[in-house]
């Protein structure tokens, strides 16, 4: 079922041929008595970069290690370009893996590290030298080729690791939280660099991360995972604008959460006040969500444009952060956070004042079931 949905999803931003390259069919992993991954199916298209996004323990790294062949799945099938690789040993899989901890060979120089994969493939010495040089130039480290890894900074080490993985021109590039050990500024640089290298080489890539910003900004599509199964598989836009589950909505981007109810008549209400939403609504207890920056803070009796929702509440907190105003508004039992860009004329409402929060009907996300 999951597979069908992927096929009909919108085409990738970069892939010229939307052909499935890496396919996982009903792959499962059991450690002892624990079903770490019950059953997982997905298809990554040739040339696209797909993020496995989820909190720690969601099975994203386990899945990556199964693709790399470092652990064997308990069941299911993994194939690359329709060739079944489920039982293929690691060294025959032709995949490039970049680790969070870099995992460079500490006893080898930078160029020896990069040359390793080529030597294992029995490539001629002269060609190795040329390709290592090219790969190191690609990550701007040609001048450090004779250094040992320990003489390099974290960012440089990760670039060596990237060159080492790419120089062998693997069929698939696997990245296991490659940016998590870097500081914020370096992380931004590396994000751009990894993405542009991946697009230049047109390599199919899987990017494991727990950071939604990395997933949203770098990848063509995102697999949101939780507890060993896929919550949603879609483009960054789909994941952010049309989250399939409350978990996706709150894990990717920030959300406000209101408990509400859909009456049998189809009327949606929260804290006794009626609301508008698009699409079909599930009858019964629901969770209503919307993004803080899509909500506007209005005075109690200000005009609300048509097609917008309005909820009356009481202002319980307000913070001026220069380019933003963050306000907390209590609506019934719930609290809504509002984020609004400031204008010169913005007059801050008083604490405890009666206010109205307002947002477009289309920004309302409704999920069946009560708050958990």
């Amino acid at each position: 079922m999951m597979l069908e949905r992927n096929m009909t999803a919108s085409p990738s931003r970069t892939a010229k041929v939307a052909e499935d390259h890496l396919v996982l069919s009903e792959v499962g992993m059991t450690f002892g008595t624990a079903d770490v991954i019950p059953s997982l199916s997905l298809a990554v298209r040739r040339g696209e970069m797909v993020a496995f996004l989820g909190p720690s323990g969601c099975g994203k790294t386990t899945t990556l290690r199964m693709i790399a062949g470092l652990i064997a799945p308990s069941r299911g099938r993994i194939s690359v370009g329709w060739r079944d690789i489920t039982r293929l040993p690691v060294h025959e899989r032709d995949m490039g893996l970049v680790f969070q901890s870099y995992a460079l060979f500490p006893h080898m120089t930078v160029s020896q590290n990069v040359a390793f994969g080529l030597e294992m493939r029995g490539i001629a010495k002269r060609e190795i030298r040329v390709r290592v040089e090219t790969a190191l130039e690609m990550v701007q480290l040609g001048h450090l080729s004779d250094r040992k890894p320990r003489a390099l900074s974290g960012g440089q080490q990760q670039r060596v690791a990237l060159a080492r993985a790419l120089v062998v021109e693997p069929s698939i590039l696997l990245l296991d939280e490659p940016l998590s050990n870097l500081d914020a500024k370096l992380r931004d640089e590396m994000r751009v660099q990894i993405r542009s290298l991946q697009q230049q080489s047109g390599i199919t890539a899987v990017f494991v991360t727990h950071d939604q910003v990395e997933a949203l900004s770098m990848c063509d599509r995102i697999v949101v995972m939780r507890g060993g199964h896929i919550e949603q598989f879609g483009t960054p836009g789909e994941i952010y604008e049309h989250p399939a589950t409350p978990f996706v909505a709150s894990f990717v981007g920030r959300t406000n959460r209101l408990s509400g109810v859909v009456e049998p008549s189809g009327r949606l209400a929260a804290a006794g006040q009626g609301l508008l939403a698009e699409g079909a609504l599930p009858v019964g207890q629901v969770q209503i969500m919307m993004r803080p920056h899509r909500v506007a803070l209005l005075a109690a009796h200000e005009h609300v444009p048509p097609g917008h929702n309005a909820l009356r509440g009481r202002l319980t907190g307000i913070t001026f952060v220069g380019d933003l105003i963050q306000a907390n508004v209590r609506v019934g039992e719930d609290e809504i956070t509002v984020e609004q860009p400031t204008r010169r004329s913005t007059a801050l409402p008083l604490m405890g004042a009666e206010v109205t929060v307002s947002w477009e009907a289309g920004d309302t996300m409704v999920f069946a079931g009560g708050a958990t």
Partner: protein
Amino acid sequence: MTTAIALTRSRRRFSDHQVAIALLLPIALINVVGFMLPIFNLARFSFNRATTGGGIENVLTLENWTGLLRDPFYLELILNSIWISLGVTLCALVLSYPIALYLHRSSGTWRTFLTVLVISPLLTSAVVRTYGWIAILSDEGPVVGAIKSVGLTPPPLMFNINGVFIGLTEILMPYMILALMAGFGRLDPKVEEAARTLGATPWQCFRRVILPLTAPGIALGCLLCFVLAVSSFITPKLMGGGRVFLLATEIYDQAIVTLNWPLASTLSILVLIIFGAALVAYSAVLKRLD
């Protein structure tokens, strides 16, 4: 308030340097009296002349040293000792390496349990363990019995070089395992995984990554085992049955049986020189590894 003043005053009275010297002085004295002086004495004996009846004639002569190097019996004994020690070290290394690697990779209670198992032989004296080996390897022992039961003629295992070799290897293995594990710090499983994903077969991964990264541990273990093997006495004495002549047993014979102390001293200093050479080789290996 008063204590604080007293503290600052006492700190001023003795500098850090003086405190360090005061703390090191006792052990330095014990070492000088208990180790350096006897060694010096031993070195001096090796240039004295032995007289009949265990006496030492206080003259300065090189005849112990020249005699040693001219006597084919002693040359063979020295070379034998070195070769056997190197062989035992190599065997202990080959047998201990997989155990150390497995221990390094295991974790939790299982690791603790196995480590205790590895160390436990050290809690028994080498004499007891050697007698254990004598029981196992003797002509009526289980090993000979097992070989005979499949219709083969067992080689003589006891009271010759074979028994010494087997016994020494087993007795030195715990030291080798501990030294190897101490040197395995740089071995990160992620690095092995990186090698495997880059196309290295298990053997290539071992040869190109695991072995170089564990080399410091190998060097340390070999140094330790070699030194212990060269100076081992009880096992060669008991398991050799008086037919295996090694440096340590010969020193014992010269000092206790023949009462030729100058010759015993010369052999002892020779053992020290061999240790020095092993240490130099170890440092050279470490330097090359870095």
